[in-house]
């Protein structure tokens, strides 16, 4: 039933990026950044309800991975899920309305920031339970495998979730069933306020791959191209029946665990230093402009369009209606 596995990610070649791909990647990363920076600003006014966990700083990961995926491929996300949603093709206007608790939101205002999902684009949901997505992607991957479809599933999870039993169970299950799953560990250095230097027992999360009989690789998560290539190799391998992989991207979040987190556990100047020297958008722009592939003016135009999109999404979200009592008991079941 299952093809022979190899434990090598280097035998597959990632699809080369066209100019259009580069523009799309930049637009996606900029959209995520703008979306998150705007939420950071608006949250401070006290108008946005609930818990919000921002993805700013990590854009190269979601974008580098999802540029290798189609709408038929599935991803599972985390509590820090806005970036994954946008990169997988969820409409940011609906997302903003969702976060503002409006009936026009992606989930009609019933999910909120931590539960944005859109199965029509293969987005299985942000998830309020750390490590919750691992088992789920084994299921979407199993469905593809049983139906003979070339679709893959990606589980995004953090360094915190890397210590959850669900992730270990899912990695073992994906390996013994030889499923087309990519375990994409986003190691941003902190599980809430606890450093991964303390909580992860091995040097790299990817070191755990061999224990589950799959290849593992650690890449620079600030470098879109490194993520794109490593994830692309793992995804291509999975598509061809080669089984699961573990890809660890090392990166950083620019804001706290949640909005309002004072982040006293971080070193003074830590985030500013990363923003100045490693920022994924700056690195990307420098590379594609200096190579002559993209003009700075094109990137500036994208920046302006994205800003208008996000500004418009906030204006709309603020004026859209909230759900009413008639919505309280709908959609608990398909039928009851």
């Amino acid at each position, binding site marked *: 039933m299952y093809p022979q596995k190899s434990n090598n990610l280097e035998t597959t070649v990632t699809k080369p990026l066209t100019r259009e791909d580069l523009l799309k990647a930049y637009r996606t990363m900029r959209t995520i950044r703008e979306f998150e920076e705007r939420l950071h600003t608006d949250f401070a006014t006290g108008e946005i309800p609930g818990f919000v966990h921002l993805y700013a700083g990590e854009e190269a990961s979601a974008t580098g991975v999802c540029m290798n995926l189609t709408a038929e491929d599935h991803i599972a996300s985390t509590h820090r899920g806005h970036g994954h949603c946008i990169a997988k093709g969820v409409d940011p206007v609906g997302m903003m309305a969702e976060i503002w608790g409006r009936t026009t939101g992606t*989930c009609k205002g019933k999910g909120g920031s931590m539960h944005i999902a859109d199965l029509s684009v293969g987005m299985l949901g942000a998830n309020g339970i750390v490590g*919750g997505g691992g*088992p789920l992607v084994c*299921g*979407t991957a199993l*469905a593809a495998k049983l139906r003979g479809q070339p679709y893959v599933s990606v589980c995004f999870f953090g360094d915190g979730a890397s210590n959850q039993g*669900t992730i270990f169970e899912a990695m073992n299950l994906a390996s013994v069933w030889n499923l087309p799953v990519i375990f994409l560990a986003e190691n941003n250095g902190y599980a809430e306020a606890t450093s991964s230097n303390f909580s992860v027992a091995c040097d790299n999360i990817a070191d755990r791959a061999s224990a589950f009989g799959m290849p593992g690789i650690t890449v620079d998560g600030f470098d879109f191209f490194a993520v794109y290539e490593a994830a692309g190799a793992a995804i291509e391998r999975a598509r061809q029946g080669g089984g699961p992989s573990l890809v660890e991207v090392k990166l950083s979040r620019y804001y706290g665990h949640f909005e309002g987190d004072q982040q006293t556990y971080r070193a003074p100047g830590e985030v500013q230093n990363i923003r100045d020297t490693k920022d994924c958008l700056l690195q990307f722009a420098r590379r594609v402009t200096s190579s002559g592939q993209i003009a700075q003016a094109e990137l500036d135009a994208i920046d302006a369009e994205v800003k208008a999109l996000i500004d418009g999404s906030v204006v709309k979200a603020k004026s859209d209606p909230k759900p009413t009592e008639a919505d309280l008991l709908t959609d608990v079941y398909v039928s009851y």
Partner: protein
Amino acid sequence: MARKITYQQAINEALDQEMSRDQNVIVMGEDVAGGAGSPGEQDAWGGVLGVTRGLYHKHPGRVIDTPISESGYVGAAIGAACCGMRPVAELMFVDFLGVCFDQIFNQAAKFRYMFGGKAETPVVIRAMYGAGFRAAAQHSQCLYNIFTHIPGLKVVVPSNPYDAKGLLIQSIRDNDPVIFLEHKALYTMEGEVPEESYTVPFGEAAVVREGHDVTIVAIGRMVQKAQEAAADLQKQGIHCEIIDPRTTSPLDTDTILESVEKTGRLVVVDESHPRCSMASDIAGLVAENAFGSLKAPIRQVTGYHAPVPFSDALEELYIPSAAKIIAAAKSVKEYK
């Protein structure tokens, strides 16, 4: 054409017929076939008590053994259901709920609501429950009340072979997550079961016996005990009406209330622990909605607020008996 088969055979037949009807139906769990990767016989067990025996060879590739990773494979079943499969995952003993509950109550149960009605999760989770096997505290619980508490889940507790087959077929065709609970002491119970496929609808209680003196609502295996008690009580001139809810979620409250309005007396028989139980739930429902009809206090015949004991001397004391039901029915009939 009906013939006598056991509760266990009825469940096997339901799975077999649904797997033949719909390629999306798959069976997965620990040793649901047995023998995966082993040098000896495949389908060696067909489930730990042989309930799924024979399906492995009839439905190649669709009866899938799993590692002992309940979170992993229950979550995989849920993920597969999200993309249109109809997995039937077997949890073996319902007591193992403790190691996979997150996937059931935080993931499957909530997807539809959290995602604004955009998800369907047609998964069935089968599990054995109940005392009487000297299996002690971690293999003898009922726990249907825990699932019933959770909006988004449906909970099925068949008391006989006919209902077992019809309710399981309904469970598989249902588009919501269903917990299907099989009392292990009922596996050898024989009853008339049609050979052809049929469904028993959810939320429709069975009036197992008609009577005008006392309403007995009994869950699962307790229906048998109630029937024993009612036969004895009949000889003593007390005519009991027995109601088998068949599903605890949805619960057919109308049939229960109509019966109590007729008899004015209620005994609820529930094998599980008494606190926050189906017994207390139904008692509360009747107290709130049919108070004016009651001629006597409601009586609950349940297990105890103690783990299920091992020694036969203690376990027999633990399980509600016909004698206790008789005593309860007489006490409400004679109440002045």
